[in-house]
């Protein structure tokens, strides 16, 4: 689904990623670990071009999205992202947070179709069938959002603002906000690092559920337990390159790379 080919990224004169190759298939749960400053977060942020790669290719569903000519917004809709600091929209209620992007993008498509049809009427070209209305879109998105909230047990928080929620609640809402776009893959950037210890569990639990449902996930994490139990593959990034990549059992039981052995001895 995602093919990363020789990805490089520099900030000024500092080369953070020095050529990374990776293939992520449908249903994969890739855990990325590594010491701080190793480039793991930068790698994740390059995957949806939040940081523009300096060179290399990222083939997502057959399109090289690292190419600046590609309309990245269309592809990002199929790539959810969950941030360390949640980044819920502070000026929107919980429900609006979840509904905003689905409603907006579908309304945009509707507008485009209608415009096309108006022009096509003159040129006797083919009409795009318009089967929905703005109200219909909103209604469906609201239902979907409420279902997602019900799933995480926060339907009573639908109309409050994010400032009133705990970290764990915010992060779970951020995850369902990503889910609302029906993405092909979700990228997690240290989703539990900014949480109080007692709230880490509820977020990991939700992520585990998603994994069981077959969602493709790329997770930068410090939670070795999560990497060991849930991941289908663990990747160790250090000094801007992939030093080791293996199935979790093999990865934790028989690490080969010197730096990885050192790292694991510190964190386990």
């Amino acid at each position: 689904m995602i093919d990363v080919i020789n990805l490089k990224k520099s900030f000024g004169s500092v080369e953070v990623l020095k050529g990374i190759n990776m293939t992520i298939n449908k249903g994969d749960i890739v855990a990325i670990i590594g010491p701080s400053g190793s480039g793991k977060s930068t790698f994740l942020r390059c995957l949806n071009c939040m940081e523009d790669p300096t060179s290399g290719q990222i083939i997502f569903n057959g399109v090289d999205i690292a190419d600046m000519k590609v309309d990245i917004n269309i592809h990002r809709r199929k790539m959810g992202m969950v941030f360390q600091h949640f980044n819920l929209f502070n000026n929107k209620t919980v429900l609006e947070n979840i509904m905003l992007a689905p409603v907006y993008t579908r309304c945009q498509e509707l507008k485009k179709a209608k415009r096309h049809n108006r022009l096509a009427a003159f040129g006797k070209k083919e009409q795009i069938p318009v089967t929905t209305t703005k109200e219909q879109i909103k209604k469906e998105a609201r239902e979907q959002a409420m279902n997602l909230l019900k799933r995480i047990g926060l339907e009573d928080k639908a109309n409050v603002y994010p400032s009133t929620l705990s970290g764990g609640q915010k992060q779970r809402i951020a995850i369902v906000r990503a889910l609302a776009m029906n993405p092909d893959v979700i990228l997690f950037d240290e989703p539990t690092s900014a949480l109080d210890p007692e709230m880490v569990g509820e977020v990991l639990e939700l992520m585990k559920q998603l994994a069981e449902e077959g969602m493709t996930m790329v997770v930068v994490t410090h939670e070795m337990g999560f990497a060991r139990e849930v991941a289908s593959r663990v990747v160790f990034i250090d000094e801007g390159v992939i030093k080791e990549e293996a199935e979790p059992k093999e990865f934790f039981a028989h690490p080969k790379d010197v730096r990885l052995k050192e790292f694991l001895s510190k964190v386990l």
Partner: protein
Amino acid sequence: MGNFDQKVNKFIEIFWEQNGYNKVLQGLQNTLMIAIAGLIIGIIIGTIIATVRVLPKYKTLPKVLNAICSFYVALFRGTPMVVQLLVFYYVLLPIIGLKITGVQVAMMVFGLNSGAYISEIMRSGIQSVDPGQMEAGRAVGLSFGTSMVKIVIPQAVKNILPTLGNEFISLIKETSVVSFVGAADLYVAFNYIGSNSYEFMVPYLVMALIYIVLVLIISLLIKLMERSLKKSDRRN
């Protein structure tokens, strides 16, 4: 104080009997219209400039736009409002052959001028919003512009509302120079009353009072608005 009583009587006489109040109302209307139009135009221009200035700058177009905006801001912040009014009214508009009234010119110039100031206010407002908000917007597939309009600017406006209020207040006060281009504002009205009675003490005193009352009312309105916008901050 007999002298002062006489002056007050004279003022009241002209104010009521010689149509003075009409002039004052007209002046008040013009003053408010110029300030409000200036603020609205200014907010629109300011928001556009501020957005251009926070655009990522590794392409040519944003760089060019940015240079134009810098020039614009330097131009309008670097010259006094009176000079801008005079240049527009007596130089630019005659050159392009456009005939509009002093009030319309004043609205335009006030808008252009406050646009330059508001752009800086707005820029600091936009930069005060957590960059993560923009990232989250981009991450769900919204464009830079949409994320800006739907997520960042509403939060920025909330942060800068007090400063924006100050800008409006200073606009109201600065309207007192529009008589340079023949717009009849409050100053013109009270000047009329003064010159008809050869007595300026009371008219100018009343004029000052009206300005103060105007500003106090606006401060109150801003406070109310701030409170209603704070609703996303309050814990409930």
